């Protein structure tokens, strides 16, 4: 019995040890004529995941409200994903826009009081998908009633933008909890979230594998 128990314990320990160092997850659309929060799945999930059909994606910034003065922060966040050498994504800052939280073909980052992101919501991401879970547009609305900074204090615009852009690329929260924390870690952890980690880079490679 002891030997059997020990063997099983070793198997269990092996399961833990063999847990992948990459724990990223992708967003799977489970919507069937209703609202869905999106499921978290592995890269090889049979149902696939939301993804772009292009590596070149541009975003515009609506400078109304606290969007003013955030150009460098959002550009830096885009560059973080572009600079991943193991993937060929190019995220481009395409200038300012007056576009809002609407399905209009423009990927927009905006600050607003409303848009369904009030109260406890800091930032909200919407993905517009066509059949095959192809992302055709993403908008991110930041809650204008909280303070957004570019100096590293809470809430750090660049870190949160990098995180939300990850979602806009079809990447869900990582399951990795060890430090250094990936940008796609589930919770805000300050300005260190500006820097992508190996797990984030692997997620982007996974996204690219869908092209």
């Amino acid at each position, binding site marked *: 019995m002891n030997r059997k128990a020990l063997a099983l314990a070793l198997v269990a320990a092996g399961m833990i040890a063999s847990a992948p160092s990459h724990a990223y997850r992708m967003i799977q659309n489970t919507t069937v004529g*209703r609202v869905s929060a999106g499921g978290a799945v592995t890269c090889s999930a049979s149902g696939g995941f939301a993804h772009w059909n292009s590596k070149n994606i541009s975003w515009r910034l609506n400078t109304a409200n606290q969007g003013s003065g955030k150009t460098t922060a959002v550009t830096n966040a885009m560059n973080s994903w572009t600079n991943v050498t193991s993937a060929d994504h190019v995220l481009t800052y395409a200038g300012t826009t007056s576009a809002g*939280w609407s399905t209009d073909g423009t990927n927009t980052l905006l600050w607003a009081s409303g848009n369904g992101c009030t109260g406890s919501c800091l930032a909200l991401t919407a993905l517009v998908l066509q059949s095959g879970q192809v992302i055709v547009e993403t908008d991110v609305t930041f809650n204008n009633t909280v303070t957004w900074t570019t100096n590293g204090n809470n809430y750090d615009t660049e870190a949160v933008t990098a995180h939300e852009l990850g979602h806009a690329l079809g990447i869900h929260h990582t399951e990795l909890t060890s430090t250094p924390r990936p940008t796609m870690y589930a919770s805000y952890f300050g300005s260190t979230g500006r820097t992508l980690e190996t797990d984030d880079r692997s997620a982007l490679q996974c996204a690219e594998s869908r092209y």
Partner: protein
Amino acid sequence: MNVAKGLLRGAMALAIAASVVAPLGATTLVRESLDGLVAGNRAIVVGEVLEANSYWNEEHTFILTDVRVATREILKGEVNQSELTVTLMGGRVGDITTLIVGGAELIPGNSYVLFLNEENLPGVERALTVRDLCQGAFDVRIGRDGLRAVSQANRHPLLPDARGSFEAEGGVEGFPMTSMLQSIRNMAGRDAARREVK
């Protein structure tokens, strides 16, 4: 022998946890307490979703979903109808899906405790909606000890609140329905009394 069994159980539990835990959701939300949910929302109901219908708003700029809810119990607010229409952002129309990451998920046939407020949504002013997204919807489930209300925010990691707490209200097991509903009634009554005193 018992120690080995204990170790085995612990290791297996850890292994299973490591392999199955999968946080869902993606938007950035700060944890809201039950008290905060009660105070911040105009109406709180227990209801069953009858149907959900997605459509483009009038300006054709955003997909919304109207969810028809049969109210079983009204815990707060002047809700006189036996049915409510709750409007949510996102949904699917034809080939196009708008997915709101971290939104409330209301499925026909299922029952929920819903925290509802009037908010401006794209193209619709003062729509009755689940303002707090996944935090404002509790799934009603049958537990070992009766009905329980489980926050949908368990599928969505939250930022810590002012007290440093980040667990969704009720945790993964949820609240026993009876005590949760009583707590909500008490909180709503206390808020109303405060307003009267002012």
